[in-house]
């Protein structure tokens, strides 16, 4: 390599790893400055698919974010029974916790929950619920909801075991979005959110903070 080639390569090395350092350091929660800098370099990181965003490099922080949301629906032929909507690679049996390891659903759920958590606006959950219902086929349910699984600490789990209970018996999952499916005619339908007060995501977050 000539000296000029080496200097050009050196400039690339410095830029690439400076951007990588910025992207990784802002992975958990970017400061205002990091956010501004990321906005500047997004014309390089995003087109080259090197944007680390908020992917979980830590594997887990034990947050409700890491617990994938499930969607359930009530159908006319079985009123009162919430039936899980089909998700790829996920078997909804009696097993708790549900095994998500064969599915990419947790990645999607995490991203949507991040959006929802940032704004408190249930719109991303509504978009996802509508997409799931569309993928289900022709049969339209009466109502659909998004359920966030119970998040309990290890100590709470041991207490539940000592009391000879299951986690499902001891704690209720939180409903974070509920909507009625309103048929508009001509095969069209719409989701109309049910009372805002049914959304319990905030109380769930408080409970997590208070864990031992």
């Amino acid at each position: 390599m000539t000296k000029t080639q080496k200097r050009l390569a050196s400039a690339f090395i410095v830029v690439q790893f400076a951007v990588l350092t910025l992207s990784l350091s802002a992975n958990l929660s970017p400061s205002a400055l990091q956010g501004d800098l990321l906005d500047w370099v997004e014309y390089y990181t995003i087109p080259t698919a090197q944007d680390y965003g908020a992917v979980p490099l830590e594997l887990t922080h034990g947050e409700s974010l890491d617990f994938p949301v499930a969607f359930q629906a009530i159908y006319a032929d079985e009123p009162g029974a919430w039936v899980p909507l089909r998700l790829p690679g996920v078997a909804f049996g009696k097993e708790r916790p549900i095994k998500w390891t064969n599915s990419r659903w947790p990645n999607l759920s995490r991203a949507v929950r991040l959006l929802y958590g940032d704004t408190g606006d249930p719109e991303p959950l509504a978009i996802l619920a509508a997409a799931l219902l569309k993928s289900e086929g022709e049969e339209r349910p009466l109502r659909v909801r998004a359920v966030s699984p119970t998040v309990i600490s290890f100590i709470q789990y041991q207490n539940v075991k000592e009391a000879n209970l299951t986690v499902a018996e001891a704690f209720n999952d939180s409903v974070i979005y509920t909507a009625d499916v309103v048929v508009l005619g001509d095969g069209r339908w719409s989701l109309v959110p049910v009372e805002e007060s049914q959304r319990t995501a905030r109380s769930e977050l408080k409970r997590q903070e208070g864990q031992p």
Partner: protein
Amino acid sequence: MIKPLVENWDEFWFKPSSGVSVTRTRVLLASVATVWFGSFLAKSGYWFGEQGVLNLATSSQLLGYAQTSRVLNWSPLWLTDSLLAIRVWLVLGVLASLAVLVGVGGRISVAVWLVIAVGWAHRIFWLSSPVEPALVAMMGYLLVVPGAMILRTSPVEESALHTLVRRLIQVHVWMLLLAGLLSALASLTWWRGEGIWWLASAGRSNLLTQELLSNARVVNFLSHAMLVGYGLTLWWLVVPVTRQLGVCVGWMCCAGIALLADQILYAAVLAAGLSAFWPVASDRKTTASEDLQP
């Protein structure tokens, strides 16, 4: 003061070396990419196409809501909702990965491989995990020089480009491991030794369940061991005499990421990248000659 700095910099990044290490890492990364592309094929009908959960309309709505530009997230797959196009793209990705694995086509194959991978990573935006940015960056490094064809018998000439690619991959992997460790330490979950339990508790451990982790000491040991493993890997990789040991411990950490969490492909990318640290004959020759210097 500047001159020795520049000399050391050049020595680190540009000292000519053989292409054995680059070839080995390329083969491993291309193997992971083959599985990565292939893993989408089976469930592609569920996620994509007109009836898919992430069809064009839904993906665009979510991108718009997140205020993310579809121009920056470029992909030819934004132009069609056809499931056939998705499947053809994935098959092309598998074929390109296999071509790069074998070493056919040199930089052209790597460039095609990279374009297919980036196009796919952008289309699946909402399904992304740490795999995509890590894999794509390392694919990009291989554009500089992809190494030799596998099963090539004649020796490859030593080149500064081999060292450059190898160092780029090494530094990138080291930084990913460091970021993983620091991110984990940002939470009490790992300090309290409960990280592994949380993964099982969320149904996101490939190996363990809540029931298997009823003993607090086992949970603590596994969680602490993961972080100690990360720390030892980072330390031993930068010390020449312990580098091989660092690679071995790093691979054990990757096994942990794959089996204790649900990040098999990310673990595989890290493991492939770690292989760039494994010494080659030219390294040993250099060390021996340096030892002989007065």
